[in-house]
């Protein structure tokens, strides 16, 4: 049984346009059976934060290609991508590289 987690979710590079323009969200993930990982975080975001056009942010069970994910200012590829287990006070940043030039 995982305890509730408090994480900061941030959006940049144009991704915030899908979230009403709000860049930083301090969220509290409820306690649940399995530990929280990025995969389940994405599901949670899609259900609770994403205001419109989910296909522009999420593709399948991962993010759309072109969206970078940083956990505590480090590339998620170094941490196991979707399988990285979130810890309390983590900061997850989604940067869209597709917008602008």
């Amino acid at each position, binding site marked *: 049984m995982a305890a509730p987690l408090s994480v900061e979710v941030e959006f940049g590079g144009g991704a915030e*346009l899908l979230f009403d323009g709000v860049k930083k969200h301090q969220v509290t993930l409820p306690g649940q059976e399995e530990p929280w990982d990025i995969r389940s975080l994405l599901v949670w975001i899609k259900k609770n934060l994403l205001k419109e056009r989910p296909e522009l942010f999420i593709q399948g069970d991962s993010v759309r290609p072109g969206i970078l994910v940083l956990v505590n200012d480090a590339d998620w590829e170094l941490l196991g991508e979707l399988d990285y287990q979130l810890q309390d006070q983590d900061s997850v940043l989604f940067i869209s*590289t597709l917008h602008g030039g």
Partner: protein
Amino acid sequence: MCEMSEEYRESVPKGLPQPRLGIEDQKCVKCKEGLPVVVIRAGDAFCRDCFKALYIHKFRAMLGKNRLIFPGEKVLLAWSGGASSSSMVWQVLEGLSRDSAKRLRFVPGVVYVDEGAACGQSPENRAKTLAEVKLVLQTTGFPWHIVALEEVFSLPPSVLRFAAQEPAGTEGAYKAAVDSFLQQQHALGADGVERQSQHCSQDPHSHTGPPATAQTQALSRLFDSVKTLTAKEELLQTLRTHLILHVARNHGYSKVMTGDSCTRLAIKLMTSLALGRGAFLAWDTGFSDERHGDVVVVRPMREHTLKEVAFYNHLFAVPSICTPALDTKAPEKASIHRLMEAFILRLQAQFPSTISTVYRTSEKLIKAPRDGCAAGPRCLLCMCTLDVDTADSATAFGAQTSHLPQMQPPVAQAGAAAGPCCCAGMGGAPRCCRSCLCREDPRAQVMEQLCYGCRVNMKDLPSLEPLPPYILSEAQLRSQRATVEQEVREYLLGDSEDETRTGES
């Protein structure tokens, strides 16, 4: 033998590869001691400092190896507010402030094009964005220019003309220029440096207030009349290029730097192929683009992937401004550009060498002119040498060009009397026919001066009337000139025939 292969198979570990270890167990591949923060290419993890060094080195090496920018030259940085161009401006800023041995040696200015009208933004949003833009521009300390896209309606037709320039210096000339510049700097000492920085912060060119409502409406009308998003994006790019070129020519800039990244150029290459611009790939995606003659467009960011740019901007706090564009929130199949972007990025996710392969291919494209067409006519809009082959009417292009006069309704004017006699000779001289019948039709006038790619785009514009006046007037001028040239040529031919006859008799 069979037993041996069975043994071998058993010794190979089964199952999926081990899950990646935590960050604590990995080390930077370059310095072998720092904690890695970013993965570039396929599996190379770099720490923060090595990543910064690599990023800056790429930028300097790209400028250094091409040796196109001479010391003291005025260079205009085209800044859109987006991540790549912001990164480029920041690199130039840092590069200019280094110690004198490795300092960048050109004189930069920044231009920002306000495209809010084309994207349907409200005046309040535009004003808010402009305030943020000004703030960022002031921190750079470079002379800056803010132009609204509406100013295309007051551009002169000369912006569409190729201005010949003496060819760039040889290797020796570049070295000589650098040496003499360094000597000058040394002689001037501290004064020279101060004078340069004074010039930068002293006189920023301020824009003259918001554009007239009539022009904004005209621009909105133009973009609303375009039927497809693909044609809109191409039109926007064309107008933006003309505007930046005009600013560069006005203020004496001989180079323009754009922030096209590796990812964007790979997407652009594939998109250009789909749009029928395959003949001009070398100019559209190469490091330097000399199609305008006196102003050369340079792409120093072409080796940086969008991932590197985004990471650098985040880690080192490079300011950028996100503005809604034409294709913001558009679905995947809304335009060819979006479709190709989705295709390439999705392919890249599974085959991480896709973008670098496309990039290497684009590096190999050469700008050799076609035989016999060294100084041919140029496209009215994109200013590339026309890929027209009037003798080859069997191609799709040739069929299109000879088909054009037949589409026009019969024009009951003085010129019509000459029409039928020209039509009779259509098989051999489509050009003559066009100039006679189409003189009165502005649409045909414009279309025949465009390259294949631009013609395909213009098809999505039902009427050419909302286009800015400089395009239409230049088209008319060129068409008239072509007619006069044709008439003079005919006269000369008739003359030489007389001569041979008198010679024989």
